[in-house]
């Protein structure tokens, strides 16, 4: 080992750096070092303005919806009472804390409690939208579903305004997009519904992709009998009707978030298998795979280090579209009534209400625009990702 270095190079010191313009050791301080190919992909993605902005808008909406409790909540963010500060959004206080009579949880929407707090020089700071997805509207001037407050005429409001001794519609509980037929605020329900849909879609996509990629990788890499048996199994599996399984399971268990996720996972992992399998079948005969085998590298390492990055290009191209279809899955189930249990915030349920309450167009329109904008953003992002991974653009 030592004699070979001395044979050619007279002295060990490295050649001067000046003749090596582009050779830079990877920056150790950066969190993630991107390979040049990935850097070019990132450039391509950023160059697609529509997709790039769509990503930021979507991320902003998603992050905002993750903090739904801070935006739409029937518990105040903060209460100042008798010189002390209380945070009902994080902690449940009893009514007696604020000078009430009962040992029950304080209901801050109760005029009696509000009066108690005001008397002790207190102040209630509400969230921007002072309703949660399951907060009933009080004192509605119209039967539910109730119009957006800004559409109400003074005449409609008159009886309730007089009864409560207020000055006009404006002083009533304000609902930007009205309420649904249960008396729940539509904006709050959209916010929580968006969150649950996107989370459901993301989890479904990630878990099913991991399973799908793993299954496809094993089939493609080993081929032969494993491949043959797996392929036949998948053919049979995909012919099982998903919706019936859902109905049967739902009759035994409650349809919770995770039960639904589990059932849909049973069937959705197959989507990427064919793609990844084909990539591995193609890739396992590349010369650099042969070279790795000649070095004695383990199968698992070859699959992870050499083949998976190849298959990931195709996977990443499909992924955004799988996300958008997964997001729609929950909405569709809710719309059909096979989704989350009644009362949960959900976009599909809102659309269903819009369908059965044609006289209340704010329901249908709110649902439609939310779903349409959400899917458009995802598709724009998806297109940009697909173009960024396009090998003709990357290498051309």
């Amino acid at each position, binding site marked *: 080992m030592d004699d*070979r270095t001395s044979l050619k190079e007279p002295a060990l010191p490295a050649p001067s750096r000046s003749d090596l313009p582009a050779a830079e050791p990877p920056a150790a301080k950066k969190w993630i070092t991107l390979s040049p190919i990935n850097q070019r992909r990132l450039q391509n993605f950023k160059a697609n303005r529509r997709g790039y902005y769509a990503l930021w808008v979507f991320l902003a909406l998603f992050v905002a919806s993750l903090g739904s409790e801070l935006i739409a909540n029937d518990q105040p963010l903060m209460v100042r009472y008798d010189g002390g500060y209380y945070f009902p959004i994080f902690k449940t206080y009893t009514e007696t804390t604020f000078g009430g009579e009962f040992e029950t949880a304080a209901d801050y929407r109760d005029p009696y409690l509000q009066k108690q707090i005001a008397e002790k020089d207190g102040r209630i700071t509400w969230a921007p939208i002072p309703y949660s997805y399951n907060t009933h509207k009080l004192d509605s001037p119209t039967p539910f579903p109730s119009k957006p407050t800004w559409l109400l005429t003074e005449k409609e409001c008159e009886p309730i305004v007089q009864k409560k001794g207020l000055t006009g519609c404006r002083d009533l509980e304000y609902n930007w997009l009205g309420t649904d037929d249960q008396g729940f605020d539509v904006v709050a329900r959209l916010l929580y519904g968006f969150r649950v849909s996107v989370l459901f879609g993301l989890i479904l996509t990630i878990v099913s992709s991991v399973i799908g990629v793993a299954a496809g990788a094993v089939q493609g890499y080993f081929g032969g009998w494993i491949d043959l048996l797996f392929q036949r199994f998948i053919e049979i599996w995909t012919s099982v009707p998903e919706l019936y399984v859902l109905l049967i399971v739902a009759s035994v268990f409650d349809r919770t978030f995770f039960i639904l996720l589990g059932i849909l996972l049973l069937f959705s992992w197959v989507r990427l298998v064919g793609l990844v399998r084909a990539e591995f079948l193609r890739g396992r005969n590349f010369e650099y795979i*042969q070279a790795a085998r000649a070095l004695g590298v383990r199968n698992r390492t070859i699959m992870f280090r050499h083949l998976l990055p190849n298959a990931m290009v195709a996977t990443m191209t499909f992924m955004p579209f799988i996300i958008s279809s997964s997001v729609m899955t929950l909405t569709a189930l809710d719309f059909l009534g096979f989704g989350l249990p009644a009362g949960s915030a959900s976009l599909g349920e809102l659309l269903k209400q819009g369908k059965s309450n044609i006289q209340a167009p704010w329901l249908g329109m709110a649902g439609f625009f939310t779903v349409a904008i959400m899917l458009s953003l995802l598709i724009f992002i998806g297109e940009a990702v697909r173009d960024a991974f396009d090998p003709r653009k990357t*290498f051309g």
Partner: protein
Amino acid sequence: MIMDATTNMLLEVRDLSVAFRQGGRESLAVDRISFDLRKGETVALVGESGSGKSVTALSVMKLLPYPAARHPSGTIRFNGQDLLAMTPEQIRHVRGNDITIIFQEPMTSLNPLHTIEKQIAEILLLHKGLAGLEARNRILELLTQVGIPDPAGRLQSYPHQLSGGQRQRVMIAMALANEPDLLIADEPTTALDVTVQAQILKLLKDIQVRLGMAMLFITHDLGIVRKLADTVCVMKDGKIVEHGPVERVFTAPEHPYTRDLLAAEPKPDPAPSQPDAQVVLKADDLKVWFPIRRGLLRRTVGHIKAVDGVTIAVRKGETLGVVGESGSGKTTLGLAILRLISSQGAIVFLGNTIAGLKFEAMRPFRRNMQIVFQDPYGSLSPRMSVSDVIEEGLWVHHPKLSAAEREARVVGALRDVGLEPEWRFRYPHEFSGGQRQRVAIARAVVLEPTFVVLDEPTSALDMLIQAQIVELLRDLQKRRSLTYLFISHDLRVVAALASHLVVMRYGKVVEEGPASDLFANPKSDYTRALFAAAFNLETAPEGVVAQ
């Protein structure tokens, strides 16, 4: 041949430049070149890949991807008309009628879904309006002309049913269909075996004389130029650096680059034969048979005998050259010896029987046996830096090395193959073909193996680079007393390295012996034909080699 310059002039290229626009940047592929082509004359454009020779040919046909490509300067006058100024309608008439082109890869130039008859008939119908019996007679005439045996029986064949040489013959028949004045041949024999190459070159020469065509021949192979061309233009980086009659350029080259090219032939200086040295690798009656399965139950009905009973032995410090046409089983033999594909028959490596060992059990031996592949673009993972590529074997075989030790070995290996150690953080796409091949060699030698299989390591490289890689391999062999199994169809490179030679055909060994004896005195007809085709571009009598 050169009589009256003005009347005989067919093609005049003056100050031609080609620029490509890509991602807002414009790069000049061809830089103000000029050359002439007279009737019946052959002009050869030679140069390395990327020198702009193919682009020049394609601009004569106006086949470049316009408007991404453009001509900042120059004219191309064909029979007095400026091709560059023509409308697409006019150029279409010239194309395929007066000027035709044949490409390198005959498989992709023919439509795989159409029969031979249909492909040729299309051209006849388009340009000559021939159809029916008339067309069929002309097709038969053309196929006879290009030497396709049993032309009537071949009419209904599809491209995949023909051999590479026959496909190229069909391509030539299509190019000749309209009796063009100018035939452009863009590396027409590069994808073919040496024996077939000799046949195709002979055919082109015969046809040219018979029809009085002019030919613009593009190649990187100086042997072909000398054999075929009247005038040669040497291209480098988009410029014609030297230009003149073949005899003059070959005997008295003026430009230093031409001199380099002519001197690039790898010099024969093989490692000496070591009849008493230890046998590093011995394979006895090695067979690789691929089963042919048919029917519902996938019963084995026969075998493709890729390697059929080969016995070889390589001694320490020697280079065993394995030569043969494509399909002769030489690459399969290399893979079987390294136990990368399953085979029958004994394989003994440094005294240990390795045939039949499982992948896990093979691992300790892999440190001592390595391989370098043909395609330097395919053999390096595009997603790993050079350092990662070279390190991989160290992780497997020396997992206990510290990071610093590993780095030292990578640096050492890069120095050994003549690359800057600082380049180890770069990715393969930042290197040229020759540099990539050096990286692939570094990956093999970093483990300090005893035995290296070289599977056509120079075939994908330009002439000058080929000579450098051969030099490097020889140097490494001397310094570390490596043992090579050198697989190649390029006999000139084999002659430079091999001390012992095995000639293979149809999976069997035709002839073997010390390289010097074999080259001086080949015994079998097949070996003689192979040598004649490789060294003198001469065809063999019928029946000796594949057509």
